[in-house]
C-alpha cells in the first residue's frame, strides 16, 4: 500500500513532467483559487496586526468619554447637537470616580502651527492634559520623560512631542532641551513619544502634549469639548468602571432618567466591531471568488483526469491482468489529481510570497494606507493551502478515478 502510494507519486511526477503545459493549464483554476485564499489570508493577517496596533494605541483597559463617537456608528446629527464636555465636568468626574485608576482630561487643538529654527510647520495637534496621561499608552516614550505633577500644577513651558512631530521638525537631531514655539509661546521639548500610528490612526503621531494649565493659557478651553481618558487599571473590572462612569456622567450632565446619554464612551471594543465588519466583507468577497475559481479549477482538473484515464486505458488493463484491485487503480488516479493540485498550491505559494514581499516592502512608500501589509505570509496559510489543494484534488479526481477502476479489463487491454 505504502509502496503503491510512493509509486503513484513518482508516476504523477513523471506524467506532469512530460506534459508541463497541459498540467499547468489544467491546474490554472486551482492556482487562482488557492492564490485568492492566500491573498485573503494575507490581507486579514495584516488587518489583524493593524487592529492589534490600534488596540495598543487606545489601550484595552481604557475608556474615552467624548462628545464624539470615534467609530462614527452613532447618529451624527444627534452627536453634533450634544453640549460640550466642559473642563469643570471633567474635574467633577475625576473627583467623584471611585473605581477608575486614573481619570485624565484631554483637550485637543487641531491644526496647530509650530515654529522652530525660523521655520513654520503646520498640521500638528496640541493636547492639553494632566501628568497622569503618562500612565496611558501615550506614556510610552522614545526619548526623555513626561511632564510631572509640579509642571502640570504650574503650567510649565514644557512639551512632549509625537513621533511624526519629532521626525518632521528635528530630522533625527536630539530634540531634548530645544525650544519650539506654539502660537508664539516658547516651550521646551522634554520627551518624544514612540511611533504609534497605524492605517487607522496615522494622525496620532502628530500629537504634542502640554500641561492643561499651559493649554488654557494659550487657547480658550471653554470653546472646545473635552475628552476624558479613563484607565480602569490592570486589576479593575472594565465593566464596573464603565457602569460607574456612565452613572456619574449622567448626574454631572444633569440627564433625566428617560433621556439618552449625551456623550460617547469610546473603547477598543467599538473598534473590534468595525474591524469585524471589514473582516466579514473581505471574507464574503473572498469566499465568492474562491468558490468560483475552485469550481472552474475542479472542472479543469476533472477534465484532465478523464483524458489521463483514457490515455492510460491500456495500462489500467495491464495492471488489472496482473492482479491490481479496484482500490489500487482509483488510489493511483486520486493521488495523481491531488498531486497536480498540490503542485498548483506550491506554485501559488511561491507567487504570492513574492507578491506579499514586494507589496509590503515597496507599496507603503507610495500608499501609506497599506502599511499594514505583511511582508511574509502567515504560516497557517501554507498548511491551509496544502490541505485545501489536496482536498480539491481528491474531489476533482473522484469520478475519473472511479471510472478507471471500473474499466472492464478485457476491453481495456484491447485499447490502443
Amino acid at each position: 500500500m505504502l509502496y503503491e502510494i510512493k509509486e503513484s507519486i513518482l508516476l504523477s511526477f513523471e506524467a506532469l513532467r512530460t506534459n508541463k503545459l497541459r498540467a499547468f493549464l489544467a491546474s490554472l483554476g486551482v492556482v487562482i483559487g488557492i492564490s485568492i485564499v492566500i491573498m485573503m489570508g494575507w490581507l486579514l493577517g495584516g488587518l489583524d496586526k493593524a487592529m492589534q496596533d490600534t488596540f495598543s494605541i487606545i489601550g484595552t483597559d481604557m475608556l474615552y468619554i467624548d462628545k464624539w463617537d470615534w467609530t462614527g456608528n452613532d447618529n451624527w446629527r444627534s452627536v453634533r447637537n450634544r453640549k460640550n464636555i466642559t473642563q469643570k465636568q471633567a474635574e467633577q468626574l475625576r473627583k467623584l470616580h471611585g473605581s477608575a485608576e486614573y481619570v485624565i482630561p484631554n483637550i485637543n487643538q487641531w491644526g496647530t502651527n509650530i515654529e522652530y529654527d525660523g521655520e513654520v510647520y503646520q498640521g500638528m495637534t496640541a493636547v492639553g492634559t494632566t501628568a497622569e496621561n503618562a500612565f496611558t499608552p501615550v506614556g510610552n516614550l522614545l526619548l526623555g520623560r513626561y511632564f510631572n505633577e509640579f509642571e502640570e500644577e504650574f503650567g510649565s513651558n514644557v512639551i512632549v512631542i509625537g513621533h511624526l512631530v519629532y521626525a518632521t521638525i528635528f530630522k533625527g537631531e536630539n530634540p531634548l532641551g530645544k525650544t519650539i514655539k506654539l502660537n508664539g509661546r516658547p516651550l521646551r521639548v522634554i520627551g518624544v513619544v514612540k511611533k504609534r500610528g497605524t492605517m487607522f490612526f496615522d494622525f496620532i503621531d502628530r500629537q504634542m502634549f502640554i500641561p492643561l494649565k499651559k493649554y488654557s493659557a494659550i487657547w480658550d478651553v471653554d470653546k472646545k469639548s473635552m475628552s476624558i481618558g479613563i484607565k480602569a487599571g490592570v486589576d479593575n473590572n472594565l465593566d464596573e468602571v464603565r457602569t460607574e462612569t456612565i452613572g456619574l456622567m449622567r448626574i454631572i450632565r444633569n440627564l433625566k432618567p428617560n433621556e439618552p446619554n449625551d456623550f460617547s464612551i469610546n473603547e477598543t471594543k467599538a473598534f473590534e466591531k468595525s474591524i469585524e465588519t471589514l473582516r466579514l466583507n473581505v471574507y464574503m468577497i473572498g469566499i465568492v471568488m474562491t468558490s468560483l475559481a475552485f469550481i472552474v479549477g475542479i472542472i479543469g482538473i476533472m477534465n484532465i483526469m478523464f483524458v489521463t484515464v483514457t490515455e492510460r486505458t491500456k495500462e489500467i488493463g495491464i495492471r488489472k491482468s496482473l492482479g491490481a484491485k479496484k482500490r489500487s487503480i482509483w488510489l493511483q488516479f486520486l493521488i495523481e489529481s491531488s498531486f497536480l493540485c498540490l503542485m498548483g498550491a506550491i506554485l501559488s505559494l511561491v507567487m504570492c510570497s513574492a507578491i506579499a514581499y514586494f507589496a509590503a516592502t515597496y507599496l507603503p512608500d507610495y500608499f501609506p494606507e497599506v502599511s499594514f501589509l505583511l511582508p511574509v505570509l502567515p504560516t497557517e496559510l501554507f498548511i491551509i493551502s496544502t490541505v485545501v489543494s489536496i482536498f480539491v484534488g481528491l474531489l476533482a479526481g473522484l469520478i475519473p478515478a472511479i471510472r478507471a477502476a471500473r474499466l472492464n479489463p478485457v476491453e481495456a487491454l484491447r485499447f490502443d
Partner: protein
Amino acid sequence: MSKPIIDIKNISKIYQMGSQLVHALRDITVTINENEYVALMGPSGSGKSTLMNILGCLDTPSSGTYFFNNTNVRELNDNELAEIRNREIGFVFQTFNLLPRATALKNIELPLVYSGIKKYERIEKAEEALRSVGLEDRMEHKPNELSGGQRQRVAIARALVTSPSIILADEPTGNLDSKTGNDIMRLFQTLWESGNTIILVTHEEEIALHAKRIIRLRDGLIESDEINNNQVKF
C-alpha cells in the same frame, strides 16, 4: 490421478453486436490438469482469446460453470478475482503488454506489489525471474530499449514471478520472427519441464505442435481435443 486446475463445463459466451448476437463460445467443456502443456488451436475468430480471457478470470462466461482449483469462479467478487489473477495466473500476451515507462525489473515487480510483498523480497524474486529467462543483464532497461524477443521474455518473467498455477499465453510468438519465436517456444518447453502448467493460444500449426495436448476450436465449438503424439521438442 493428477490434480485438475481448470474445470469448465458447458461454457458459452455471447456478445451483442447491435441487434446481432455473436456466439463466441458454445458449450465448451474442458478439464486441464497440473503440469499439462495445452495448445488452443483454431483460425482467427474461432473464440480462442475469448476462452483464454475466461480461463484467466478477466472475463465471465454467459453461461456454464468454471471451477479453478476447485473454487467456483462465479461466486468470487472483484477483489477475489483480482487475487486469483495475481497469485494463480500468469498472462503472456501477443503485444507483450509491458508498462512502457517502467524498467524490466519494475515491470516484473508489479504483480508482487499487488500481492503486498516486501521490497527486498520483490527485488530478489524479480531478479530470479529475469535470470530464469536469461535477461539478468537487462534489468534497468525500459521496454523500448529491448528487442521484441527480449520484451516477451520480460513478460514471461513477469508471468512467472508469482509462481502461478498456470501460464496463459495468447499468441506469444505472433509479433516475433520465427527464430525469436523458436527461442520463446524453447523457454516454454523448459518451463513445462520444470513443472509449470501452460496453455498456449495460437493459430499456427507449427507452434501448436510444441504442446503435449492440442484442443482445436472452430466457430466457438471444440472440434477436437487430443494428445499430440508428434510433439516437437528442442
